[in-house]
């Protein structure tokens, strides 16, 4: 998976990353913009995600309806998503059809039409998307925990945005957001698949290099101050099941502690992408019947975010009993050195997950652009060796540093009418 890639910067500042893979007649193309929900001030929350929706409403050359059908007709798969730190658009196409995707992306980088009527219909679509999320107790709980964990940093709000803003954001707000951030010098094009690098680069230049650069938009930076003690909150809603979410502060992806924390995560919550039934949390909480399910994890982000542990409480147990079991496990990792075999196990697990990922060209193109948003491709190619360098002492140190009660937020979803 760590084979060579070609990296290039066009004259207008657009970054290009190309990786030839000739295992199947497929090419996956991902266009990343350095804008996400963390760039949204109060009053405009959700605007990055909404802009992403508007980018499917067409250009003069590729009107809506023509655009999606053109991709589908060629057997392509395409979509887009918005995260805290970035917005990305992808097309995975039969190799001989990829030119369509490139022409489309070049065109909608500068020529998207934002019609009032499309903004109006998309407003209700997005409100409906949010209402669908609100049906889920876990969304309500996660949103409340995140809002409590971040008072200052814009990681405070959910990517979909606050309902109030979804009602008031205007067409001009959206268009202005688009014009401000959708610039070649704020974009990364990552492609993997069955192409010849030289010809592909030539074609990319033909299509993208004439797009004028603009003032590079600054990221919204409002660092979150240190937390001053444990915070607890509760959310009430329908149902019979109690959910608990415990969030700790977690460093950004380029922090020196990131890889020791990945090993820590593998031991505590289980390896990402695999079943987690031998993780310490599963054994302590589910096997011991304090919970019927538990999961844990973090995200690779530009600024410090959260490590979240989510517990579905066992109906016969008290919330405090489940929390005490969690604390005992954290304490073990803080007090008792893990064995180097456990670290080797975590590395082998990661190696397997990497191998599975390399079966899929879309996945490989995704990772190239994804890591570029917060680091560089080296971060990815060195991932396994960075994990292998972690020592038992490193794991203990980060367990002590990041998993203190005073730095956490505990959220509890109380089903109405049920004690917990």
């Amino acid at each position, binding site marked *: 998976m760590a084979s060579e890639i070609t990296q290039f910067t066009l004259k207008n500042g657009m970054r290009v990353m190309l990786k030839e893979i000739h295992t199947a007649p*497929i090419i996956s193309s991902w266009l990343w913009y350095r804008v996400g929900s963390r760039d949204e001030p109060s009053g405009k929350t959700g605007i990055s995600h909404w802009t992403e929706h508007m980018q499917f409403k067409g250009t003069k050359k590729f009107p809506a309806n023509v655009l999606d059908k053109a991709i589908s007709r060629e*057997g392509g798969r395409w979509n887009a998503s918005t995260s805290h730190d970035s917005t990305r658009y992808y097309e995975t196409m039969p*190799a001989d059809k990829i030119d369509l995707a490139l022409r489309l992306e070049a065109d909608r980088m500068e020529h998207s039409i934002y019609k009032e009527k499309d903004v109006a219909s998309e407003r209700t679509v997005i409100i409906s*998307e949010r209402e*669908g999320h609100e*049906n889920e107790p876990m969304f309500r709980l996660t949103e409340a925990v995140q809002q409590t964990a971040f008072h200052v940093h814009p990681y405070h709000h959910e990517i979909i945005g606050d309902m109030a803003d979804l009602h008031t954001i205007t067409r001009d707000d959206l268009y202005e957001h688009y014009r401000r951030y959708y610039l070649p010098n704020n974009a990364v094009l990552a492609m993997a698949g069955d*192409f010849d690098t030289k010809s592909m680069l030539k074609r990319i230049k033909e299509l993208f290099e004439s797009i004028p650069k603009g003032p590079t938009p600054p990221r919204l930076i409002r660092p979150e101050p240190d937390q001053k003690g444990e915070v607890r909150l509760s959310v009430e809603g329908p149902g019979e099941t109690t959910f608990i979410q415990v969030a700790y502060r977690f460093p950004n992806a380029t922090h020196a502690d990131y890889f020791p924390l990945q090993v820590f995560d593998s031991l505590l919550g289980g390896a990402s992408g695999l079943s987690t039934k031998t993780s310490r949390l599963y054994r302590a909480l589910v*096997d011991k019947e304090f919970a019927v399910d538990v999961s844990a994890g973090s995200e690779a982000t530009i600024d410090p975010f959260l490590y979240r542990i989510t517990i579905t409480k066992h109906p016969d147990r008290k919330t405090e009993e489940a929390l005490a079991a969690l604390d005992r496990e954290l304490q073990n990792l803080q007090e008792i050195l893990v064995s180097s075999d456990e670290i080797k196990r975590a590395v082998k697990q990661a190696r397997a997950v990497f191998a599975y990922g390399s*079966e899929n060209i879309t996945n490989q193109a995704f990772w190239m652009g994804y890591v570029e948003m917060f680091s560089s491709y080296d971060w990815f190619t060195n991932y396994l060796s960075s994990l292998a360098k972690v020592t038992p002492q490193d794991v203990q140190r980060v367990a002590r540093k990041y998993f203190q009660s005073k730095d956490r937020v505990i959220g509890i979803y109380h089903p109405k009418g049920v004690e917990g």
Partner: protein
Amino acid sequence: MPKKLSNTAKPSLLNPDDIYRVVLPNGITVLARSNFNSPSISMGGYVAAGSLFESDLKLGLADFVSSSLMRGTQTRTFDAIYNELESVGASMGFDSGVHTTGFGGRSLVEDLPLLLNLLSQSLQTPTFPKDEVEKLRAQMLTGLAMRAQDTSDMAAMAFDRMLFDGHPYSRPADGFVETIQSITRKDMEKFHRLHFGPRGMVIAIVGAIEPKKAAEAVERCLAGWQVPGQVDAPTMPAHKPVKKTVKHHHALAGKSQSDLVIGMIGPRRRDPEFFSASLGNSVLGQFGMMGRIGEVVREKSGLAYYASSSLNAGSGPGTWEINAGVNPKNLKKAIDLIENELRRFIKSGVTKGELADSQANYIGRLPLSLESNSGVVSAILNMERYDLGFDFYQRYESMVRAVTRDNVLETARKYIDPNRLVISTAGP
């Protein structure tokens, strides 16, 4: 495109020459195909034991049994099984359906023997340890409590109940609170003893291994499995046709969104009109941004984040259904729009252009669906299960292109009657 950007010759799609098939003397069908692009393998398959065999009083038994298979065997505890798997980054799981219990897993190729050994033990010698069964029961009951709060699950459950009234397909595979509470370890042991066996079992392995070697590895683990008393599946009763449109609303307080399912019986996978129905469905609620349904409900009216149609075709009668999640106050409007689209669909069918678009999509997307090992496992299993022939992908393009507008219209009229719909909704 000004210059040829791609430089690989079109590789052969799955064909009879590169799928290895052998039937072991005990009845297990083994399928294998190599892919050396990644050092991993995917494995999948099924045994002929499903919820079809369980009584109304023990609904959820097949599901309970399949969830318990890896909770302890004669030689390994639950923790030991998962420790072996997770230590090498492998995974494996079981999932019960109406006709079969499916299994799947993946690992690095060096760990295939470990994976097959655990599969073999889980299938042949599960012990259903008491404490593990009770833990699972609590987890399943919590799952049912969460299901009871899920608008999508509740709408789907009522849809199946109305559409398949009196037929085994009407029943939820995860059972009900009272049936899960009534299932004993003895029930589970008996179900396993009578229904789990090599006859009817199929296993497919795809990945970085020569097919013959993969098959030999299966043989080493499973050729000795004998279950003389393995019970055959009962005959499926015919389903009762829906005589007139039936509606049901499941009230769930405190929800922001309602879910709706509108639909009818669809073809079986092996029915000759399957491709006509499938291409018609693509136009109706798939192609582009969820076809015509997506266009009227989402794009034009802004009523829903998702609104699409799907065809679920298996061994028995399938479903042809439209699903959407809408604001509760827009429920009726969305239903009206969908009903109008169904009327339009059976009145004039699809246009020449629409059909050509969907045909192009079906043909063009093939390499994407066969990209990963798990995609190939699933394709091979389908060919075996529905007797499609291993030359299916050689014939695929011509079968797709052979479908005409008249075929689509005729099929649509055979299955869709706007006066005999099942309409199920759940929400406030």
